[in-house]
């Protein structure tokens, strides 16, 4: 039986692309949330692979159009300043990706009170 709806909106399409299959989903890892995090990581791994391929295509197109030589990307030697800039960018990038570990470390080092303790203190007459 065909649905009577005439068309789908863009938002409906995004939602439908990711909709679940009918039937309970099995989880295998000890914690469901760990498996969900794995799923997010795998999607990001795919998007990174797609981006790498896009860059490879860009390199081919530039070479085909004679803007760069084939292999020029791989042979590219960044200047000293460029190397330093990239190093800082890489450090910032890793810090962003691993922010949760940084914050966990800070918490281990701190004596932060839990919210209930704070609330109890703040609500004492």
């Amino acid at each position: 039986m065909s649905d009577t709806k005439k068309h789908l909106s863009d938002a409906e399409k995004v939602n439908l692309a990711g909709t679940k299959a009918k039937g309970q989903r099995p989880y295998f890892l000890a914690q469901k949330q760990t498996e969900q995090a794995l799923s997010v990581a795998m999607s990001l791994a795919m998007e990174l692979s797609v981006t790498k391929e896009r860059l490879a295509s860009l390199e081919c197109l530039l070479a085909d159009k004679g803007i760069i030589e084939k292999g020029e990307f791989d042979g590219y030697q960044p200047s000293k300043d460029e190397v330093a800039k990239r190093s800082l960018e890489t450090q910032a990038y890793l810090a962003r990706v691993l922010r949760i570990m940084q914050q966990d470390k800070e918490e281990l080092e701190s004596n932060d009170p839990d919210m209930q303790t704070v609330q109890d203190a703040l609500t004492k007459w």
Partner: protein
Amino acid sequence: MSSNALPSWDVLTKHAVFPSGNHDEVARLNFLTHLNVHLSSQILPGVKTAYDKQVKPAIIAQTGSEPTSRHDVRKHMLNNGYFQMWSALRRNTMEMRHQAARSQVLGQIENIVEKVDKACEGNANIQLDSSVSIPPNVGSVDIHCQPGCYYQEYFENDVTVAASYDLGLFVTTAGLLGALSDGGGQGIANWLKTQHPDFSPKRILDIGCTVGHNALPLAQHFPDAQVIAVDVARPSLRYAHARAASLGIENIQFVQANAEELSQYDDGSFDLITTSMFLHELSHQSLPKILKTIHRLLADGGLNLHLEQPQYAGMDVYQQFIRDWDTYFNNEPYWGPMHELDLAKVFAECGFDPSDLFDVGVVSKVDEKIFGKPKSDGEDYGRSPVWNAIGLWKGQSANNGAKKSAKKNANMSENAA
């Protein structure tokens, strides 16, 4: 190019209703294809090691004996960390494949539906029947985790589920099914061509045809035959018809019907009846009804052939357990129960002579469009798609028996003389 390099999704044949893919969409499908191959070739072998070195010794230590069923193995493996990670990755990869394919299709669905509408309009090769309902074996869960299964329509005349199935078959098989994902049907045609070159059916029935990919090679191999392909799923049939028409194949009619009945066709009116990877999507209720229908519709001396995976009987429990993964974790609830059936008994109960049954390995030729020309005769790149087929020539044993018995009688009279 290294022989280990996998083909790109982009080599698939782009029939008129096949979804196109832009740069990133193709890259996504290729990534998922590689991920599937990596999981099965690099990570899955470790599941067997985990079983041999960790789980099996633990079962023996605990119970004093080796596990005797695949269910025992599964119960213990579910606590094994390596199996848990492989399973989590495999399930997730399946879901990613559906998301990627559906998102690609939905981005161009109006264009595809317009072409399908045009191909179906007033064409006798597509016969729909709105009284056909979705049976429990199709509707209880979305089979192989495909959202919407084969039948759901998200808007009027939608074919998203069919187009998404067609484009995604490549991803789980890495091209093994060929440029039109029709390796199963090609395998049957190839087997008939080489083993039974004189067999020339006039009417062919394909049951559970979905997008028609495995029925088309039969229509092409027997251009003078009429092929009837049935399914319960309206969007799959409409897409299948447009797909076949765009490939120039006219001798096939797609019919919306439940194969448990098919009362519109006369007894003995088909010479060849096929199914491809279909029996495991049935139920204990529907399988005997469909086999009885096949028995009624198949002409004496006609061929019935079912492409399937091998039955569990005779396999060790680990083999059974790992083949059974899909039953519990990939929405294939009938996979296990079907593969442990005594098929000879079931066929006998449905009217067939069980001594007519045979098993045969059906091989499809490696598609040169995808894998290139073989370097030497016989080389198959280790990628020959092989299926297990269960088949029978209706009444063959009785006919041979009659011949043998006639011969025996002749011998006896010779002896007497």
